[in-house]
C-alpha cells in the first residue's frame, strides 16, 4: 500500500474514533484498556472525554517531565497524555499536541477548554514533517502512534531535530516479535489497528539509535498480544530516547 493511502486510511479510522468513539481494540472498554496499560484511576477519571483507549502504554507515567518543560506529543488524539503532561509542567511550561486527524484536534481543543488548560495547544500536522522549530522542545511523548507512520525514519529524525540538547523522548508503541505474512501487512484493519505498520522490535530500536538517540528500554508488555491483538506475535514497548 502506498504511503499516502496508508495516511488516508489512518485518518479515516481515527476520525471515526474521534466522532463515534470506536476503538481499535475489539470492543473492550476505554477505561479498562487504559488501566491495563498503566494509567491510574484518578488520571483517567479526571479527563474522561480525553481517554479514547487508543494507547498501548503510558509514556507519561514512566517519563521524567519537569516543571517548566516544553512537551510535544506526537499523535495527541483526544489529548489525554497532553493533559497529564500539562499538570506536570505547570503554568510555566507548555504542551503542544500534533495530530494529522482534524476531528481529533477539534476534540482535543474542546477538551482543553472544558478542563481549563491554557498552556496546552493543538495543531494539525504530520509527525514526519513537524511544524516545530529546531531545538525548542524538552520532552517528546508519543503513545501508540509511530507504528501508523509510513516513514518512521523521518519521524525519529524530525524528533531529534526539534529536541533541545539533552532532550528526552518517551515512546510507547507496538512492535512485532515475528514478521507478519504479506496478507497481514496489506490488511487495512490491521494497519489502522496498529499492527501492520509496526516494525520488528530490534529494527525499531535500531532506527531510533540511527537517528542519533541513546535508547533505554523502560517497559515491555507481551500480554497485550493476547489481551488486544488476537495473539499476533507483538508487544508494547516503552522506551526513553535521549539526545546526547
Amino acid at each position, binding site marked *: 500500500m502506498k504511503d499516502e493511502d496508508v495516511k488516508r486510511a489512518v485518518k479515516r479510522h481515527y476520525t471515526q474514533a474521534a466522532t463515534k468513539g470506536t476503538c481499535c481494540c475489539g470492543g473492550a472498554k476505554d477505561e479498562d484498556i487504559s488501566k491495563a496499560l498503566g494509567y491510574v484511576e484518578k488520571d483517567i477519571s479526571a479527563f474522561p472525554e480525553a481517554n479514547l483507549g487508543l494507547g498501548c502504554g503510558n509514556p507519561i507515567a514512566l517519563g521524567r517531565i519537569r516543571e517548566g518543560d516544553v512537551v510535544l506529543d506526537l499523535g495527541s488524539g483526544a489529548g489525554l497524555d497532553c493533559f497529564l503532561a500539562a499538570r506536570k509542567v505547570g503554568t510555566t511550561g507548555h504542551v503542544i499536541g500534533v495530530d494529522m486527524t482534524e476531528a481529533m484536534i477539534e476534540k482535543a*481543543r474542546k477538551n482543553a477548554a472544558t478542563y481549563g488548560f491554557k498552556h496546552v495547544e493543538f*495543531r494539525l500536522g504530520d509527525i514526519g514533517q513537524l*511544524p*516545530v522549530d529546531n531545538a525548542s522542545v524538552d520532552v517528546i511523548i508519543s503513545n501508540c502512534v509511530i507504528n501508523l507512520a509510513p516513514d518512521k525514519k523521518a519521524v525519529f529524525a524530525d524528533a531529534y531535530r526539534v529536541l533541545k540538547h539533552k532532550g528526552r523522548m518517551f515512546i510507547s508503541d507496538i512492535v512485532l516479535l515475528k514478521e507478519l505474512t504479506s496478507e497481514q501487512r496489506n490488511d487495512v484493519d490491521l494497519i489502522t489497528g496498529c499492527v501492520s505498520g509496526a516494525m520488528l522490535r530490534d529494527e525499531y530500536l535500531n532506527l531510533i539509535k540511527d537517528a542519533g538517540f541513546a535508547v533505554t528500554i523502560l517497559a515491555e508488555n507481551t500480554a497485550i498480544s493476547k489481551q488486544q491483538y488476537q495473539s499476533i506475535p507483538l508487544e508494547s514497548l516503552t522506551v526513553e530516547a535521549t539526545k546526547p
Partner: protein
Amino acid sequence: MKKKVMDLLCCPVCKGPLVLHVDSEEKGEILSGSLSCSHCKVRYAITEGIPDLLPHESA
C-alpha cells in the same frame, strides 16, 4: 493558538520562520488568520483557533 508559541513554530517543509497574520483574536488567543512561509510561498490557515500545519501536497 497563542501568540507566545510563535517562537516554537516553523514551516513543516523548509523549517523556516512563519509570519503570523491575525484576522480575529480573543483574550490573547488567535481564532482565525494564517501563518505564511515566505520561502515556500505557502499560507497555512488558522481556523477556529487551530493552525493547519499539514504540509501542502503540492509543496
